[in-house]
């Protein structure tokens, strides 16, 4: 008798528990769905707020001046390329093409110099032993954290003494001496993760260290080097303070300075010219980012195995 009542107790308890569990599961499923919907809603909302200014910028660059401050939408009512045509002309004797060319002249040697010098230095740090190595590597991290503001004035005085003002040399040379500690650090970390078997083999086969660097290490480093170049490209494209301090003649202006100049000199209500040139100014960096996105990921994951 007791057994039977006990069994029925157990049974009802079991059924209750089952129902409870099902209800719980349903609630959880609903919660998960609500949570997912909420997450998407927040992400879409934030994404819209994040990207709308840029979308608006592109739209506004094709608007008439009267429409820019009257229409919050991004589709121009009367599309016009007037902003691009007149903005490209600029108020200087040069077109914006000249300023893009100047930017290119700054970026190309700087990037090549960065890639070569940082590779050498990273190779030295990762594969050799020498006196003061610890101290020197600490200095890389110190430079990484050192605010530029404290060295800028003596650097200016130095370049002035060298007669380098109003030339691209102050922008090129520090980078070509592996001055961008971030890249050195990144390449050292990358190299340390690659075993040096291949290099040993090359040495046994009679390569000297330069040949090993050039024919064994550089190919393995390639993905990391590509991201070094991409970062340097984007940073230099956006750099404003460097050219502002060192470049004074308009014919040597890179786009960042030219854009600032066009704000200062364009008449107060010709907004679409400035917006159009702003669009052109950010296009190279965005294009490089979207084309090379996979390199950033590949550079991190596949680098060591490929070689």
């Amino acid at each position, binding site marked *: 008798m007791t057994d039977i009542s006990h069994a029925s107790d157990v049974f009802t308890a079991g059924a209750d528990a089952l129902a409870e569990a099902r209800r719980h599961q349903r609630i959880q499923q609903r919660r998960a769905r609500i949570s997912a919907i909420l997450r998407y809603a927040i992400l879409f909302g934030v994404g819209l707020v994040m990207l709308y200014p840029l979308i608006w910028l592109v739209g506004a660059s094709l608007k008439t001046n009267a429409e820019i401050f009257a229409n919050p939408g991004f589709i121009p009512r009367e599309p016009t390329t007037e902003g691009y045509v007149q903005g490209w002309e600029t108020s200087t004797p040069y077109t914006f093409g000249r300023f893009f060319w100047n930017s290119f002249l700054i970026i190309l040697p700087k990037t090549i110099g960065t890639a070569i010098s940082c590779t050498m230095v990273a190779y030295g*740090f990762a594969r050799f032993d020498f006196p003061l190595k610890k101290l020197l590597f600490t200095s890389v991290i110190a430079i990484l954290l050192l605010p530029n503001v404290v060295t800028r004035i003596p650097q200016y005085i130095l370049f002035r003494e060298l007669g380098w003002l109003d030339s691209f040399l102050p922008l090129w040379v520090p980078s070509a001496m592996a001055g961008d500690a971030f890249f050195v650090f990144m390449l050292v970390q990358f190299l340390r993760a690659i075993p040096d078997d291949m290099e040993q083999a090359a040495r046994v086969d009679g390569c000297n260290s330069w040949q090993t660097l050039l024919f064994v290490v550089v190919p393995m480093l390639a993905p990391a080097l590509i991201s070094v170049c991409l970062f340097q490209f984007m940073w230099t494209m956006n750099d404003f303070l460097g050219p502002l301090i060192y470049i004074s003649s308009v014919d040597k202006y890179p786009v960042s300075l030219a854009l600032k100049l066009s704000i200062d000199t364009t008449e107060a209500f010709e907004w679409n010219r400035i917006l159009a040139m702003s669009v052109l100014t950010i296009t190279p960096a965005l294009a490089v980012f979207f084309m090379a996105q996979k390199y950033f990921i590949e550079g991190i994951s596949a680098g060591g195995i490929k070689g």
Partner: protein
Amino acid sequence: MTRTRSLGLIYLSPYILGLMAFTAIPFLASFYLSFTDYNLMQPPKWTGLENYIELFTSDRTFRRSLSVTLLYVFLTVPLKLAFALFIAYILNYKLRCINLFRTAFYVPSILGGSIAIAVLWRYIFATEGLVNMVLAWFGIEPVNWFGDPTNALFTITLLRCWQFGSAMVIFLAALQSIDKSLYEAAAIDGASKLRSFVFITIPLITPVIFFNLIMQMVQAFQEFNGPYIITQGGPLKSTYLLPLYIYDEAFKRFDMGYASAIAWVLFLIIMALTLVAFWSSKKWVFYAGDKRS
């Protein structure tokens, strides 16, 4: 062996030369210059502590600039980090198109300090600009973003918070590396989402919080492009951050000694805060290695 020893130094030679010429010597030189009067025409004239005494006793622009800079940093860095962490937390979930979102949120960071973006900000926050047009839909009166001292600094803070992408990417990578079973165990023990966020997520990602904090702080103290283009330091010097003041003193008035003194004050503040962060990190940063042992 000695051959290899010198060989390593040969590979390092560009770095060592650059370190000396562009960092170490300039660093010491600016310290020296901060005790001098130097206008590039005559050789530097030693004036002892005069620059510093002037800065802290009679220079009202400096006092204003310093307080604005501190306000800017203490406003921007926590807001940006909190926002970056929040978005990374939402992204760290089995969502479709996570890569798409990640890219979208990263795009503003790519443009970084670009002048074009500062220009865009000027237009968006203009009295008749996009932001006020949108606010009008909600029945909010147009805000005078650049005319009012409090608002002006805030627009620059917003610009930098808008670029939370790189901090977010670092947070996201850290969140993705957390062992999921920890959350499952916590859920079985009845912990709410919020509790497991506070007691599991936060402690496990303290190393990257620390890293982001230092990087963003050093960067925020050196903000130049935003205020230079958007507000030119105004109104009433409410966005006249120290780097702007240094730039004006050094490259407009060519008062290199005085500018160096301001630069050194800024440097010492950054260094003091960095050291405080490093020192306090022993108490709040947990490294996975410590726990396992």
